[in-house]
């Protein structure tokens, strides 16, 4: 039929009205896209967080006084005092524990740059955490004395290449040793890449703490029993602090889901309001063109032909609104964080708490700069999925809003419609 060309021409006949009606949808769609993109951005951050946390279900550390301010949990938690390495045997006896890996992390300096150094046991570390994302060279092995794996950002910062040697010291004691760079890892988050991995024995030797560890990383037999196992550990082993990163991630994911729901609701309410504009415009169009409907019916148009004609017009308004909305949303999603830098560019972690080290203006030993430069946590991510969702939502709103007016038009009796002036 002429459905499409008729619909397009009718909309063009009332350009301003069409534009105003579509703009109601534009507001809702662009809002939806901005919000969805922000949530996607946060999701990306959380996902890389999960990767960075390395899949250890539980970490156990000494619950008593702080030793220094670096190390520990990627800077989120200050690092505690050390534990005796024999605790590994105690912990491995706890039911539900699948694998363990001891770790000695400390704040050291590489070529004079203060960073976090992780001393680990390569084999068990890979089992518990799934290993690092090595982008160049290789990871540590059992015979990796004197070898080091460094984060990509730190490599670039120190202008290092694979195979070079670096000098590493623990700061406190001042003992210095040289290490050969054998691998580079990437996490996608700059601050996590200002770190290096060496063999556990090397770490203990440099710090002069032979037989001591700072953390035990634990993988449970099943992800669903993590909280049970962690409370078992708390009650069975006195004086330790038990953290459950995967549960934290789960909580963060739950929070994100809530946030998505909340934002989506706001966007949907805006869309709902916009859809009334479409209903109104279409009702007006039906009234204005009553006579035309009568004529079409008189020359043989069936009810569904009329229905199709008006639904197509409403759909077109929805498509215009969806298209422009996606465009406007994409632009605004990038402008928005610039307008509110306090919210999007500083140290709010995906866990919703302030990074204890990231007071604006202070230099964080881990991050190698002021936090405002490196801690851009929530960057909107405009994914094809989000665009597709928003665009089709515009079309859907158009069709839904057009249903009643189109139905009214299709139900008109030809004689009465023809009498309409």
């Amino acid at each position, binding site marked *: 039929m*002429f459905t499409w060309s008729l619909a397009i021409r009718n909309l063009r*006949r009332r350009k301003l009205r069409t534009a105003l009606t579509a703009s109601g949808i534009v507001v809702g769609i662009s809002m939806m896209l901005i919000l969805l993109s922000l949530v996607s951005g946060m999701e990306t951050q959380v996902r890389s967080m999960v990767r960075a946390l390395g899949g250890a279900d539980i970490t156990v550390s000494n619950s008593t006084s702080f030793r220094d301010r670096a190390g520990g949990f990627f800077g989120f938690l200050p690092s505690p005092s050390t534990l005796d390495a024999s605790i590994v045997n105690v912990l491995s006896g706890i039911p539900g524990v699948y694998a363990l890996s001891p770790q000695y992390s400390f704040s050291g300096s590489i070529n004079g740059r203060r960073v976090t150094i992780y001393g680990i046991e390569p084999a068990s570390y890979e089992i518990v955490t799934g290993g690092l994302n090595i982008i160049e060279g290789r990871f540590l092995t059992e015979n990796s004395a004197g070898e080091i794996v460094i984060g990509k950002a730190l490599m670039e910062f120190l202008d290092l290449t694979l195979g070079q040697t670096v000098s590493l010291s623990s700061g406190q004691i001042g003992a210095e040793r040289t290490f050969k760079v054998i691998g580079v890892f990437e996490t996608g988050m700059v601050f996590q890449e200002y770190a290096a991995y060496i063999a556990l024995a090397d770490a203990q030797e440099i710090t002069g703490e032979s037989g001591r560890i700072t953390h035990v990383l634990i993988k449970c037999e099943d992800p669903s029993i993590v909280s049970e196992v962690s409370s078992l550990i708390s009650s069975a082993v006195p004086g330790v602090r038990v953290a459950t990163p995967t549960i934290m991630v789960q909580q963060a994911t739950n929070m994100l889901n809530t946030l998505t729901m909340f934002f989506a609701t706001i966007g949907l309410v805006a869309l709902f309001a916009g859809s009334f504009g479409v209903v109104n415009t279409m009702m007006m169009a039906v009234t204005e063109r009553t006579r035309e409907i009568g*004529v079409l019916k*008189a*020359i*043989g148009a069936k*009810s569904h032909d009329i229905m199709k004609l008006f639904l197509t017009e409403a759909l077109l308004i929805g498509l215009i609104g969806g298209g422009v909305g996606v465009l406007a949303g994409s632009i605004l999603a990038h402008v928005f964080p610039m307008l509110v830098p306090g919210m999007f560019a500083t140290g709010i972690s995906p866990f919703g708490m302030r990074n204890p080290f990231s007071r604006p203006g202070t230099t964080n030993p881990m991050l190698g700069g002021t936090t405002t430069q490196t801690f851009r946590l929530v960057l909107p991510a405009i994914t094809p999925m989000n665009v597709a969702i928003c665009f089709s939502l515009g079309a859907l709103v158009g069709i839904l809003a057009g249903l009643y007016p189109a139905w009214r038009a299709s139900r008109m009796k030809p004689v009465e419609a*023809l009498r309409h002036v």
Partner: protein
Amino acid sequence: MSKTTKTIVRTLNLSKIYRRGKVNIQALNNVNLQVSSGEIVGIMGPSGSGKTTLLNLIGGLDRPTSGKVFVDGVDITTLGESELADYRLRKVGFVFQFYNLIPTLTALENVEVPLALAGVSKNERRERALSLLRMVGLEARADHKPDELSGGEQQRVAIARALANNPSIVLADEPTGDLDSKSATALMNLIKELNRKNGQTFIIVTHDPIVTQACTTIYTMRDGRIESA
């Protein structure tokens, strides 16, 4: 073409009562009308005498309160909505006083609408619409919108549209009512020519002597009844 005496339209005790608030208005009162194929029938009468109501019932635009309308032997009052739409699409063509062309479409596209509704393919309907416009002498105006055409031209486009699916009956409600006498005469000459060439039956509601001169039969209506032939 040969004029047969076959009956094409027959109404049987056709009545229509409208309710206007609490008052019933008898628009048609037991009308029995017989139209032979190939006739040009004129229906005259004062306003409110039921002419348009009769035309609408024959055209399947409205349903009677009682009585029957036979077209080619089929009682169209028993048809469902969709069948009735199909009847209007293929069996009859409508011409209105105020042309009622679709303002957003060109002359050619207006003629194409019934063809498109009938499912005729794009190329075929373009060709057919062009030949119809040629027939009414408006081929050169094919790409003009209705507001770029004179009243007489618009009415000729409307006739071309009414003839699109080659209906056996054309129903016209005061087709010359908005035209000057020159255009009206030209229109009636066209109708006579079409009637002669294609044998189409015309039923025309009118007050216009120019129209009645062209008719083969004239009925006069008063108070919902046919008074005289």
